């Protein structure tokens, strides 16, 4: 029976799942009334300015604070020696290593934190920082990770030189961090030895930076009389930060409050705990007044949270029809001077093992060797789950390389290797169980939409005229929603997430979650999930996150985990409430629970629909004496959701690029992105996330890189040099979707924000390489700047008139 008009009207009024509801968070932002960390002003607050190393590798012989202390307004200058008595000069990292909070006897990367000047305002703090005199003895620096493990390489980390293990297995050199491997090496070797065709390519994911528009910072406020520490902090994971601060400081976790506030973009940059935060906290404990520390943009790009720097080698073995028989991917990972790589404890190379992609590859082997260099520490996931961009980039590039070797069409080779819709759930050779997918359907829809055959025809005509046109395809599978606590923990804490819902007597509700929005629109979308589950209007459901005194514990927002884990927690908490509500409704209507059925916003008696109780009726009843015997008052529930599996969003993208052979300028003419993120909560927000992710992918593919000279000096760490696309360069995006729900997620949703970044980067690269494919080019490393593409044109003699 079709739903009645009345039912549909009630449903649309809820603005629940599937509604392009306008965002609740906009009201403050469009008025300039957001509360970002630098907007926080507390009475008596002082400012901290960091003194940083000009050298990439040097011993600190002495530090003279006297001139800085003489500057009017300067209150203190803190160095490692000042933090030593409280044992806070070193801190644990999220990668299982330790990191110097302030340089202890030596510096290991340029711009490393050496001292913090505390003063009454930013100007005097900056004046003081200029006048701290540090005497350095320069040491030879390692910049190229391929030189880290040579016998005569200088030892970067003398503090751990004797350790044969820094948390992830045996080390073979003082500059070696770990070696991680997965898969059937012997089986893969045997398949390669007997293969009809093999391909191999060296593929770099260069060092880049997420560069959110707001840099990192904090205001630390320690109240001596109560021993309470409050820290306003740019964190994507406030609860994890609270735990780290408790471990570090010895302050009981119950007396630490971390407040996320509004965050001006994160993209992975705001997951780790940085030295600046720790020094500000110590400075507040020492001085007894609040301390603000805010990064400059140059500090941000130079020191906090770089991404990638994976020097990969991809190899595929296949039959002559292009069916892949085995995959062997390895990477040399440059983790910088401290292993503060953000990873789950048991996954030191993150989720790199998703590198089999969307393809049914019978045998696979992956290996990552991580080394120290004299560069900033990090290894954050820039708008992706841990090391997923690196993995997906390798497979999506290599399948093109294989197609070219065999003279096969790049769409056709994908079709021949896809996991088929009927094979899901499909367990890959490296052990992930892909939850659901329809890869053939997605690719076919996109090829039709862009008239792929027509594009190839046009390309052939252009090639005949000597013009360069490339068509890039990417058919990626992401892995998000970390994750099952059996597999995923950080510092021993499982990566579950949480939601606590309280329904008020008048039928409005407040929900608090362990995640942390940085622009994703959680206040809007979580309310939609709960609205549909509870039959209450999303406009009357308030969402709060980011204040650890209010929200239940959770691992935060990164790795597209908010919808897969936090969203699931919201749905499950709401279902607990609905189960209780059903009992109350049965009591009020004097029927059995089994006699009731749920319809949009009410329980009604089967066969007698006029007999019904709305959720609003029930909310009031839950606060009265008229409840079933022995039932607790109230209508609240909390859920700590431990996902049974990761989720696997996927997509099919096509990019068309025209390249000027005289200038090398690549111009993206068309980009068509089909994403399947399972159940769609808010299409407007999904589309916005895809636009943003594609733009960040465009930035990485066409311009971003953090270069160094041979001494470890930064060659581009301001927005003068580091490429952030403007509205002029950014292409127009066309979006599309299919819906293949996740079978294990309560509402079938998979997460979306990172897919366009992960899938976009190889699509752009594939398009650029495809423009040169007829000339025998199989790979070009990013970034595809005009100059670098021009060099390719020149090498092929194409630039001549």
């Amino acid at each position, binding site marked *: 029976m079709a739903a009645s008009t009345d039912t549909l009207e009630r449903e649309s009024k809820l603005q629940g799942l599937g509604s392009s509801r*306008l*965002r609740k*968070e*906009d*009201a*403050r*932002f*469009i*008025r*300039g*009334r*957001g509360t*970002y960390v*630098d*907007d926080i*002003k507390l009475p008596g607050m002082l400012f901290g300015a960091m003194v940083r190393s000009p050298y990439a590798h040097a011993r600190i012989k002495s530090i003279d604070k006297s001139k800085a202390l003489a500057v*009017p307004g300067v209150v203190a200058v803190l160095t490692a020696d000042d933090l030593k008595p409280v044992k806070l000069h070193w801190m644990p990292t999220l990668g299982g290593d330790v990191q110097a909070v302030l340089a202890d006897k030596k510096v290991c990367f340029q711009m490393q934190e050496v001292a913090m000047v505390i003063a009454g*305002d*930013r*100007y005097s703090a900056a004046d003081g920082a200029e006048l701290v005199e540090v005497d350095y003895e320069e040491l030879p620096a390692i910049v190229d990770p391929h030189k880290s493990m040579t016998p005569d390489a200088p030892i970067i980390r003398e503090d751990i030189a004797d350790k044969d293990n820094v948390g992830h297995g045996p080390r073979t050199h003082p500059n070696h961090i770990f070696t991680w491997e997965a898969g059937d090496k012997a089986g893969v070797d045997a398949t390669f030895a007997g293969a009809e065709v093999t391909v191999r390519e060296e593929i770099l994911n260069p060092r880049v930076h997420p*560069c*959110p*528009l*707001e*840099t990192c910072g904090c205001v630390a406020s320690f109240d001596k009389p109560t021993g309470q520490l409050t820290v306003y902090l740019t964190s994507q994971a406030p609860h994890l930060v609270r735990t780290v601060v408790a471990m570090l400081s010895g302050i009981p976790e119950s007396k630490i409050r971390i407040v996320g506030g*509004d*965050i*001006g*973009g994160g*993209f992975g940059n705001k997951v780790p705990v940085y030295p600046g935060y720790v020094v500000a906290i110590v400075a507040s404990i020492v001085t007894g007044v609040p301390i603000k520390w*805010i990064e*400059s*943009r140059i500090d941000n790009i130079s020191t906090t949270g770089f991404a990638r720097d994976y020097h990969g080698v991809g190899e595929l073995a296949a039959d002559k029809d292009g069916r892949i028989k085995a995959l062997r991917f390895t990477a040399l990972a440059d983790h910088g001077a401290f292993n503060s790589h953000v990873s789950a404890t048991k996954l030191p190379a993150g989720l790199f093992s998703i590198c089999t992609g969307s393809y049914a590859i019978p045998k696979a082997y992956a290996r990552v060797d991580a080394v120290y260099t004299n560069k900033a520490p990090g290894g954050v996931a820039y708008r992706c789950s841990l090391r997923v961009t690196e993995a997906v980039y390798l497979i999506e590039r290599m399948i093109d390389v294989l197609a070219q070797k065999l003279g096969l069409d790049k769409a056709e080779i994908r079709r021949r290797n896809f996991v088929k819709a009927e094979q899901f759930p499909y367990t890959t050779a490296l052990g992930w169980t892909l939850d659901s997918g329809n890869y053939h359907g997605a690719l076919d829809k996109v090829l039709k939409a862009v008239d792929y055959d027509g594009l190839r025809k046009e390309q052939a005509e252009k090639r005949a005229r000597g013009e360069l046109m490339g068509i890039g395809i990417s058919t990626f599978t992401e892995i998000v929603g970390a994750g099952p606590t059996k597999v995923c923990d950080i510092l021993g804490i499982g990566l579950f997430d949480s939601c606590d819902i309280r329904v008020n007597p008048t039928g409005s509700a407040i929900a608090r979650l362990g995640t942390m929005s*940085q*622009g*994703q*629109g959680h206040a809007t979308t979580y309310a939609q999930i709960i609205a549909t589950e509870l039959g209450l209007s999303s406009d009357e459901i308030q969402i709060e996150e980011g204040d650890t005194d209010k929200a239940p514990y959770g691992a935060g927002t990164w790795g597209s985990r908010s919808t897969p884990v936090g969203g699931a927690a919201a749905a499950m908490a709401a279902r607990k409430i609905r189960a209780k509500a059903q009992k109350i409704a049965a009591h009020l209507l004097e029927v059995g629970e089994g006699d009731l059925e749920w319809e949009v916003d009410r329980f009604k008696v089967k066969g007698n629909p006029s007999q019904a109780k709305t959720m609003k009726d029930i909310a009031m009843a839950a606060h009265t004496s008229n409840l079933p015997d022995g039932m607790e008052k109230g209508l609240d529930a909390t859920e700590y959701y431990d996902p049974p599996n990761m989720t696997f969003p996927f997509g099919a993208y096509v990019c068309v690029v025209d390249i000027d052979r005289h200038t090398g300028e690549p111009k993206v003419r068309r980009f068509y992105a089909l994403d399947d993120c399972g159940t769609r909560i808010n299409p*407007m*927000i999904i*589309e*916005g*996330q895809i*636009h*943003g*992710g*594609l*733009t*960040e992918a465009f930035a990485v593919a066409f311009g971003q890189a953090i270069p160094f000279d041979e001494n470890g000096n930064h060659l581009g760490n*301001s*927005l*003068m040099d580091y490429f*952030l696309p*403007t*509205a*002029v360069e*950014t292409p*127009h*995006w066309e979006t599309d979707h299919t819906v293949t729900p996740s079978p294990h997620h309560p509402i079938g949703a998979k997460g979306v924000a990172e897919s366009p970044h992960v899938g976009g980067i190889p699509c752009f690269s594939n398009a650029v390489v495809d423009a040169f494919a007829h000339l025998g080019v199989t790979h070009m490393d990013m970034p595809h700047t005009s100059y670098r593409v021009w060099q390719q044109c020149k090498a092929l003699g194409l630039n001549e008139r």
Partner: protein
Amino acid sequence: MATKQAVSFKLNGKAVDVVVEPRELLIHTLRERLQHTGPHIGCETTHCGACTVDLDGMSVKSCTVLTVQCQDSEMLTIEGFEQGGALHALQESFHEQHGLQCGFCTPGMITRAYRLLKENPNPSEEEIRYWMAGNLCRCTGYQNIVKAVQHAAKKLAAAAA
């Protein structure tokens, strides 16, 4: 430390007086002394536009303007857009067209778009992209910002008609 100087200007229609060092940047005066935290600091090198304010009828990046340069000037910041409880068409349009995500660039974007529409009330997409190129956004990919500006242009034209 150089002698402080008194500076007077009009901020969102109200007269203000401040006493600042000659080196003090306008963004710091606005944010630290005058509690106008709508304009943000994103780069400190005039690239990102998060600190954009309208100064005597021109968009300027207040991270590279000295406060002492603003004597007798008239200034508009995001805090001055809502009038008598009514949002400006640009504020409404950024909301309605999903032209913002984290919100950090939004005050600068709206302030810049205000000057664009003053000078060119009916801009093409290409003109909007060109005029807004001094304001960076890391979240939206600009597509919905362009739509928001076009939408606001229509609203303003309808209101003027």
